[in-house]
């Protein structure tokens, strides 16, 4: 076969990756894209925008207690504990005590609706911290029905919405290490109130493979394997 044809076939052949590698690539691109977007926004504005209290870079114990929209010269060093809302504002959604906060705190038993008073656009979002943890706010009034307060601990009593699984990538927050000396709240799961519905992420579904279709036929959207594809016609 002429070299020109070999090169042409090589360029036209679809990129085939191992499903696990494809899965890892997806998360890598998502993380890089999120960081890149935030970095680009910072580069364009000269300052990073925050809404509410948050740990100070490099998240080693210092904390910013400004409880309204403000800016800092330094952008967030770890986006796993933030959500980005309107106007590229970073809202801290992690456990503040774990990163040095020393103020009024509220205990949550596990994952829960975020229900933050200073971020109404996150009304449908969830906190994915799996172990008992703290926040600097109680659930907003409009979301109280999803919680039961027992022994100063907020327990979820409502079933999760589709957003809980849709935004499951935010479960990376569980990889964040607290500062030295952090004491998590002591919560006995056995003392949960009646009606408590723990929020648990189902296992992630494996991405469909390119070989799922029977030989000789392509599933909708898949390129047929090994066949020459004519422009405008599906073999």
């Amino acid at each position, binding site marked *: 076969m002429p070299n020109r044809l070999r090169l042409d076939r090589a360029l036209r052949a679809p990129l085939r990756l191992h499903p696990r590698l494809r899965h890892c690539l997806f998360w890598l691109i998502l993380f890089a894209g999120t960081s890149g977007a935030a970095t680009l926004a910072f580069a364009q504005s*000269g300052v990073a925008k925050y809404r509410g209290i948050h740990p100070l870079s490099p998240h080693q114990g210092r904390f910013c207690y400004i409880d309204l929209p403000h*800016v800092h010269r330094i952008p967030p060093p770890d986006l796993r504990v933030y959500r980005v809302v309107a106007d590229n504002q970073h809202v801290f959604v992690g456990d503040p005590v774990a990163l040095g906060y020393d103020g009024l705190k509220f205990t949550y038993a596990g994952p829960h609706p975020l229900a933050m008073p200073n971020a109404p656009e996150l009304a449908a979002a969830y906190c994915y911290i799996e172990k008992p943890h703290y926040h600097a706010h109680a659930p907003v009034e409009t979301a109280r029905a999803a919680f039961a307060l027992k022994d100063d601990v907020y327990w979820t009593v409502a079933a999760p919405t589709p957003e809980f699984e849709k935004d499951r990538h935010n479960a990376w927050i569980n990889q964040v290490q607290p500062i030295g000396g952090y004491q998590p709240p002591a919560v006995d799961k056995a003392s949960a109130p009646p009606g408590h519905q723990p929020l648990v992420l189902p296992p992630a579904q494996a991405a469909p493979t390119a070989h799922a279709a029977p030989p000789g036929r392509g599933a909708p959207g898949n390129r047929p394997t090994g066949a020459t594809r004519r422009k405008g016609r599906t073999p």
Partner: protein
Amino acid sequence: MNGSTSSTRATLNEIPNRIGFAARSALMLAAVLVVASGVSGCRRRPHVKGTVAVDDVLQTWNESGLDTASVENVDAAPWAAGACSRGQVANLDVLMCEYATDDSLARGEQQMQSELAREQVSTGLVTRTSRTLMAIADKRESDPTGQTIMKLVHGFRAVRQP
């Protein structure tokens, strides 16, 4: 001649009374003006009616122990405002402007936000009460935790709205 001398003497005798009357009148007029100014709330800075006055904010800060002596009037035109004052309080740069309309306030807020971004401040914020804007900039990392900034904000927001 004796008649004219006595009349002249009488006129001269009346002069101290007339001077005293003029002085008394001037003092009374000054007193009235002082009282009237106190009643009307005369301020040492320009003020836009209908919004929180910078003077009142500074007084609130003074009462909480903050030194506001360096805050001075500045040209309000760059901020699209009716009146502006600027200075340092607790080693933080503070700018306060009073506005007559919501449109001009929105323009002024945008200007203040742009300045914070342009100067890449360590910490900064713009907040408002009524139609008075306040921008605080920490350029020297004097308040990394923002607790002094929040003290200024609380004082700013505590001023009674007109």
